[in-house]
């Protein structure tokens, strides 16, 4: 992945005249606008809410939803069977004290930490996708 070599380079394109002259929600045939260099298309597409821009956003939402659902599944697998275990185990009282009282909070924090890292990575990847070509 190549990063634009000078910041001035970048700024000209993002706030340049093509964006201002275009009506906001007008669907635009992709890649045919001579004023928009292909290199920076994704961001403009998102800003102008074109079909392509929506596809980009939708891919981000989908990856975030996948992360959330994975976290939710882990949570369900962690917690879901516990009442059954307590109901089935012969000497459940002591086990219940131990597990519910002291053993669940650390895994919950770890799960949350994992999710935050994954969600932030998704966002970073998306920003890179949009800013590079």
């Amino acid at each position: 992945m190549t990063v634009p070599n000078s910041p001035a380079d970048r700024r000209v394109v993002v706030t340049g005249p093509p964006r201002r002259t275009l009506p906001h929600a007008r669907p635009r045939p992709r890649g045919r606008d001579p004023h928009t260099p292909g290199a920076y298309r994704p961001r403009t597409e998102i800003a102008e809410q074109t079909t392509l821009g929506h596809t980009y956003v939708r891919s981000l939402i989908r990856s975030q939803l996948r992360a959330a659902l994975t976290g939710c599944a882990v949570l369900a697998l962690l917690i879901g069977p516990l009442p059954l275990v307590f109901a089935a185990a012969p000497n459940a009282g002591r086990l219940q004290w131990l597990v519910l009282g002291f053993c669940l909070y650390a895994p919950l924090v770890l799960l949350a930490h994992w999710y935050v890292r994954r969600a932030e990575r998704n966002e970073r990847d998306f920003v890179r996708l949009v800013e590079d070509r």
Partner: protein
Amino acid sequence: MNSNYAVPAVALVVLATVLVGAFGLRISRTTSDFYVASRTVGPRLNAAAISGEYLSAASFLGIAGLVLVQGPDMLWYPVGYTAGYVVLLLFVAAPLRRSGAYTLPDFAEARLASQAVRRLAGAFVVGVGWLYLLPQLQGAGLTLTVLTGVPDWLGGIIVAVVVVAIVAAGGMRSITFVQAFQYWLKLTALLVPAFFLLLAWQADGAPRRPFDEPPGFREQRAVRVDTTLDLRLERPLTVTVDGTVNGRAHDGTEIRLPAGTHRVDQGTRLTFAPGTPVPAADRGSNAGMSTSLAAGREERPLYATYGLILATFLGTMGLPHVVVRFYTSPHGVAARRTTVAVLALIGAFYLLPPVYGALGRLYAPELTLTGDADAAVLLLPGRMIGGVAGDLLGALLAGGAFAAFLSTASGLAMAVAGVLTQDVLPARGVRHFRLGTLLAMAAPLAASVLVGGLPVADAVGLAFAVSASSFCPLLVLGIWWRRLTPPGAAAGMLVGGGSAFAAVAATMAGFPGGGPLHALLAWPALWSVPLGFLTMILVSLATPARVPAGTAAILARFHLPEQLRTEVKA
């Protein structure tokens, strides 16, 4: 319990709260400061504030009391309160912050562009907020009564007055400092005595009885029964009675009660011999926060446990005072990190109430009979350590308990007042916000003084169940599903939240007595949450023409990282 130390401790907490609030007031200048602390609260301060706000009377006193009375099953409550934040983090935290809305009604309006849905969400926020405020005020009354013997409406009034003063004066900025301070106060107030109590337990030979079922008396113990109760005996019990049992008066005679149910009248003194198992007691509904109409030990089938899990896991995200806090984060990434910090903070806190519950079963098992189980946390230091040290530790706990009432009540007052100001009162502005605060506290205060006697566990459970069946579908579908329509959202909230509310209200009114139907009504979340989701989805699919025009742009705003958004707009 000696009130010589407890009253100054409570007074000190109230004073410190006002002072910290005043400090916040000095730097709370703009309207934005007032409502959302100018959205500049960093993750650490905000996490401490959220935790301080979240750990209510039910957490500080109620869990230990519940565990004492009903055993380790009740530990699902703190687990659920904590895991609720995991679900909130997974589905809601960052997009909610990025939505830029301030309250749940704001969110509903921004997402669905519908005034009707906004008003409906506002009504639910006020309802859930008042339901949650009621037990805070009652808990305050109970604490003061146990400590000093003053009438039980006084504690509620003190909390209400302090909260109105702080919230109305300083708004969100001031409240943020107050609540961050109170989190650390509550943790200290529970941690330090727990340390000494565990030392005392160790010195006592570290008996392991608390894990036995049922708990037993370790030494001869006399119990005065304050309210008439029914004793349920599984085995015959030998007890010395001074008073009336089963309608017959006894005068300090030892009698042998056969297995079955026995009525013990008010004012009776029961003396138990060492080694006697503690009998189970049924009592009326007006007995503090540990007694729950919905929870007898045998009547808690697996179904009820799962109902509790679902309600607490999904209900947290819809609690009005929790949601409002996320708008004070500077951006979505900070909102996520804040939530992880909150999880660590409340997880650390919740390690302590089970300790008190277990020690309570060991050293104060008779509290299950007197109806003061909620006071177990406050009474243990005097019972186990005694002397000045015990009194001082008890005073520390009393101060912490008061911090719990104050912080949760002020967060709720803030949230309810925000909705009242924006949607009910005619004009917006800081002056009307102050009027809104007054209204937000006056209604539950009047209810607690007039009605009294709603068990705290039930009121809190009701608030969670209603929130899980109305706001959880609205938030989750609103954030992740592009085909949600205003009629769908309104129908889902009404059907899900309405049915949960009706079910718990029916249980509290005493309908019907027992059986599977009772469990279905007492723990509605297991069917009302899917019902809410299903209604919202089906009605939305049936009204595809009503999908708001800007949905795609709004969803993009919820999910796009800020750095993209600001640069694109710049």
